[in-house]
């Protein structure tokens, strides 16, 4: 596992991985600006059954088999499968990225994720709001500003302790840098803490990556795990970096 070559950035629900030449990569993307605005909604939609399956692939079967599943429809996310264990699984789209990310409207991005109940309560509303704004035709800047404003006014929640998510799908596509799902990983969300206090950024030998999210004032901790949700080892995946 070449975790040392990877630096994560994250914002919102699902983390997107970039290789260390991120700056150069971003410059190249900027030059092309392949997706300056939202494309027709159809390009972001998936076949319903395929989306349910991809959503569930984010978590181990013990989690996803009892989870609620959301799928993206023409008016936003809708419940496709009712759950019973408190987890919520869905496939995140590109508008969860920071507003300046060149992939903000990239329709290829699919981030399967399963959120624990506290995560679903405290993170999902933010992403669902972004989705609502995207479908309503708002720009990337307008979306981010609205989220910042919503959190500041208390209209959107901040993370609850004990928020956990699984991103263990081999089928995801997190960005053009990794051209796939990066590594299977679990994510923990805690109230804002210096990443160095978790060991992150102290050296390349640390098996986690943490980053402070100024919007919402929390810290995300990503921990790569050994296996994809289907049980196959992480380093057997073609997409693992």
């Amino acid at each position, binding site marked *: 596992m070449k975790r040392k070559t990877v630096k994560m950035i994250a914002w919102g629900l699902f983390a997107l991985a970039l290789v260390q030449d991120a700056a150069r990569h971003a410059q190249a993307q900027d030059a092309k600006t392949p997706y300056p605005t939202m494309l027709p909604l159809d390009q972001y939609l998936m076949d319903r059954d395929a989306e349910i399956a991809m959503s569930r692939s984010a978590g181990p079967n013990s989690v996803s088999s009892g989870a609620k599943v959301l799928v993206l429809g023409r008016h936003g996310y809708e419940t496709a499968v009712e759950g019973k264990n408190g987890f919520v699984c869905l496939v995140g789209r590109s508008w969860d990225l920071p507003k300046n990310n060149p992939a903000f409207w990239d329709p290829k991005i699919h981030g399967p994720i399963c959120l624990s109940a506290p995560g679903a309560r405290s993170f999902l509303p933010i992403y669902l709001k972004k989705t609502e704004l995207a479908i309503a035709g708002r720009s990337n800047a307008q979306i981010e500003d609205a989220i910042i404003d919503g959190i500041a006014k208390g209209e959107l929640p901040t993370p609850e302790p004990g928020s956990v998510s699984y991103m263990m799908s081999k089928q995801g596509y997190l960005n053009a840098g990794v051209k796939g799902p990066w590594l299977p990983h679990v994510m923990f969300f805690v109230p804002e803490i210096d990443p160095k206090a978790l060991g992150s950024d102290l050296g390349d030998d640390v098996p986690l990556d943490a980053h402070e999210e100024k919007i919402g004032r929390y810290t995300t901790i990503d921990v790569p795990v050994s296996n994809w949700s289907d049980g196959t080892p*992480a380093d057997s995946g073609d997409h693992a970096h």
Partner: protein
Amino acid sequence: MKRNTVNMIALACFALALALGAARHAQAQDAKNPYPTSMVPLDQYLMGRDAEIALARSAAPRSVAKDATVMVLGKDGYETAVEGTNGFVCNVDRSWMDQFEDSPEFWNPKRRGPVCYNPPAARTLLPITLIRTKLALAGKSKAEMNEGMKAAIEKGKLPALDPGGMAYMLSKQGFLNSTCGNCSPHLMFYVPVKDAHTWGAAPLGTDAPILLAPHFNGAPEPVTEFIVPVSEWSDGTSADSDAHSH
């Protein structure tokens, strides 16, 4: 990676041990318990100071451990052997950090659990180690330690859990129990007592990405420890390259 195979073997061995043990557990404990049922002379739990410092540091990646405070076990409890600068604290846990119930190795002097706590955990988890150790060294039985810990909690001697508490256990040289030896490299995350299902955690010995530690969890310490196995030991070698990983 042969992790799945190794996991299955370890799991099968663990299940077999449980199955064999269940029928004869009480009888075997009484007739031939391979582990001490009470504390043995303290010397058997002690180790050379330099070796203990090195073992403690092996719990975390070098970039974390090199600047950490290191505590070693002395005749009067844990003492600081190295003053750190990054807020992390490393030590080697002894057997009495096990759960109070169903813990046949509670007094096993071979147990060595190298661990490095991050700053929030050093403030709020390390006191559990220090209190338990104080009780053990005072000659308390397991039951008395349990009661002593309950009393300490009731008296507010345990600080409230800080958010973001976690620890590294990546040492290849540890001996966590007789079932899995050094077990597998892992991280531990601490939260207020929670049901395992809220994190989707599974019991130890399974192949889940998040596992529930059997100790603490309200019995009596008011903290739940979740374990996340990772792929490499602190020396950078793969977990799968070691026969003991599971």
